[in-house]
């Protein structure tokens, strides 16, 4: 086994790890040795081909096919230099004051979080896309919502030089999305941080990590040769995301009782919904996600967002098969798509565990409240589709594969709650949160309000696993704000921990 030694090791390079690396990197000038260990590859620019199966195989954990224990939900999260920031759409919402208050983490104030989020607004070039570049898929959504009197919001996005390929979720072929792969990691490397890709951390020991470097056959070569490594570190910051961080801590058998570890996972369970127009609409041109409708967030606990997905993802998101399914799929250029995301409650039973090999297992069941929310979301999305001119709508809980325009007034009857059968409907999630929740009490939380693990002074967490409950908004800006806060704490603790 090869040996390495650093002062600070950061595990993961997504919105948490990238920010921590960037924020701590000025310390390298004072001789502090910092490494980022990233499981995924760093792709070469020419390797961003936009081909669906190829890209999910290279950029997503388990090729995008990570399932919950019951097998009825698909969880998508990135595994790459830049983590999930390589494969999201760059849409950015700040956490609301009411949500921070619901989190009730001692010492975590909304104003402080908001100020930090604002910093990343500037750093990541967040702005509204100009009107002329809003595509028809998005315009129709706004038009439908306006006719119905539903409130919409426009997403700021973090792009620079976007050419509108619409392939954001497969990694931007132009490198336009300002994720940590484009902003924070290059800045950290410039200051002296070493980023080691293709490096999977298997285990944490006392101030050390055991890791394996592999050669996947694509991407830039890793900074380290393939093999097994023991990496000594005075400080470790775990930023592997809300599935891998809890799993790593669980299999490492830390010297502290952490009964809440892995528990209280929330996912913003989501459904992809499709309306079919009589004519082609410009859905694959331009940035795919410009608007959301938060009209029902307060009353019914869901958000509707514009989206446009790729052929396989769209096909598996629909129920049914055969001729009617093929009819829907034969006209992808006529599809209007909406994704519905439900705000789920933090339940102790929804948790990450590990199997005998130590691999993560996500034991999550959508609660009746979540299914209620997603049922209502389908009805409202169907109304939006029809109000924007769609001829037919596919609702996964529908009594029929298509609800026709002539039946628009009957959507309540045609999309019954009894159709919300997990396993039949294709639930998905790209917002995994919790598992190392912040708090004061070690019985109900894993870290303190600054991400330091209870009873393990050299170990911090800085990713979405810190969330005590869901963020009720796309989470990456909130992860960055929290990571910024954790980095501040690490800096202030270095005099004690780096001795």
């Amino acid at each position, binding site marked *: 086994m090869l040996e390495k030694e650093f002062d600070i090791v950061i595990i993961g390079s997504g919105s948490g790890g990238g920010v921590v690396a960037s924020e701590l990197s000025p310390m390298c000038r004072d001789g502090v040795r910092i490494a980022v260990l990233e499981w995924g590859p760093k792709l070469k620019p020419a390797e961003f081909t936009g081909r669906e199966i190829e890209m999910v195989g290279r950029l997503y954990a*388990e090729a995008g096919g990570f399932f919950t224990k019951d097998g*009825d939900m698909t969880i998508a999260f990135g595994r790459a230099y830049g983590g999930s920031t390589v494969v999201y759409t760059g849409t950015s919402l700040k956490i609301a004051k009411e949500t921070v208050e619901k989190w009730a983490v001692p010492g975590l104030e909304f104003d402080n979080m908001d100020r930090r989020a604002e910093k990343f607004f500037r750093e990541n070039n967040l702005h509204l896309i100009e009107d002329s570049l809003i595509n028809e898929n998005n315009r129709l959504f706004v038009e439908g919502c306006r006719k119905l009197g539903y409130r919409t919001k426009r997403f700021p996005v973090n792009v620079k030089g976007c*050419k509108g390929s619409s392939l954001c979720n497969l990694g931007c072929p132009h490198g336009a999305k300002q994720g940590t792969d484009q902003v924070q990691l290059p800045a950290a490397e410039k200051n002296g941080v070493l980023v080691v890709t293709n490096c999977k951390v298997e285990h944490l020991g006392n101030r050390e990590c055991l890791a394996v470097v592999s050669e996947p056959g694509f991407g830039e070569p890793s900074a380290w040769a393939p093999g097994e490594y023991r990496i000594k570190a005075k400080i470790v910051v775990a930023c592997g995301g809300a599935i891998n961080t809890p799993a790593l801590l669980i299999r490492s058998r830390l010297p502290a009782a952490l009964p809440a570890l892995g528990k209280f996972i929330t996912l913003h369970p989501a459904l992809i919904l499709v309306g079919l127009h009589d004519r082609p609409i*410009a859905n694959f041109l*331009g940035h795919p996600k410009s608007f959301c409708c938060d009209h029902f967030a307060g009353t019914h606990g869901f958000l509707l967002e514009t989206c446009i997905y790729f052929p396989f993802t769209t096909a598996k998101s629909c129920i049914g098969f*055969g001729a009617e399914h093929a009819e829907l799929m034969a006209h992808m250029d006529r599809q209007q798509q909406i994704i519905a995301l439900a705000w789920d409650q933090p339940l102790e039973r929804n948790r990450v565990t590990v199997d005998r090999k130590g691999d993560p297992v996500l034991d999550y069941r959508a609660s009746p409240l979540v299914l209620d929310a997603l049922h209502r979301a389908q009805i409202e999305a169907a109304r939006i589709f029809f109000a924007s001119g769609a001829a037919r709508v596919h609702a996964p809980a529908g009594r029929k594969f298509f609800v026709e325009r002539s039946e628009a007034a009957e959507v309540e009857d045609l999309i019954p709650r009894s159709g919300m059968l997990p396993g039949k409907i294709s639930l998905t999630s790209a917002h995994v949160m919790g598992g190392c929740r912040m708090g004061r009490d070690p019985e109900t939380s894993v870290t303190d309000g600054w991400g330091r693990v209870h009873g393990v002074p050299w170990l911090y967490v800085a990713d979405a696993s810190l969330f005590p409950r869901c963020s009720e908004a796309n989470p990456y800006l909130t992860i960055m704000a929290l990571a910024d806060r954790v980095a501040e704490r690490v800096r202030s603790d270095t005099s004690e921990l780096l001795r």
Partner: protein
Amino acid sequence: MKSLSDSQAAFLLAVARRVVPAVATLDPGGTERFWRLIDDALNIKPPAILARFKFFLLILRWAPALVFFRPLDRLGPGTQDGVLRWLQSSPIRLLRVGVWGLKTLCFMGYYGQPEVAAGIGYSPVLEGNERLVERP
């Protein structure tokens, strides 16, 4: 095909033709890509999940024999569809999940092929903004 036996693959192909009718019209190149995509997806699955999937194929093939006295792939197309439709909405979650997983593989094998994209109207372009502003 490394992940499934010849008999399992033949059954999967029969079901795939019900799930995605166009699978029956794939040329040899398309059929090869169909199997490669499915095989790649199955090969990265943990052995326990692969074993569960094979067991589900077995159940799906032979459970209809209890009612129709023939395995699923020897039934008429309409009856096969009826069985799949019933299982898709079955009160037993595991059966629903099994059908979803099977359908997902079939969809991946067909719609995961870049060669299929243009024929279904999926045609993103790298310079999408330019096209967008050119549109009337």
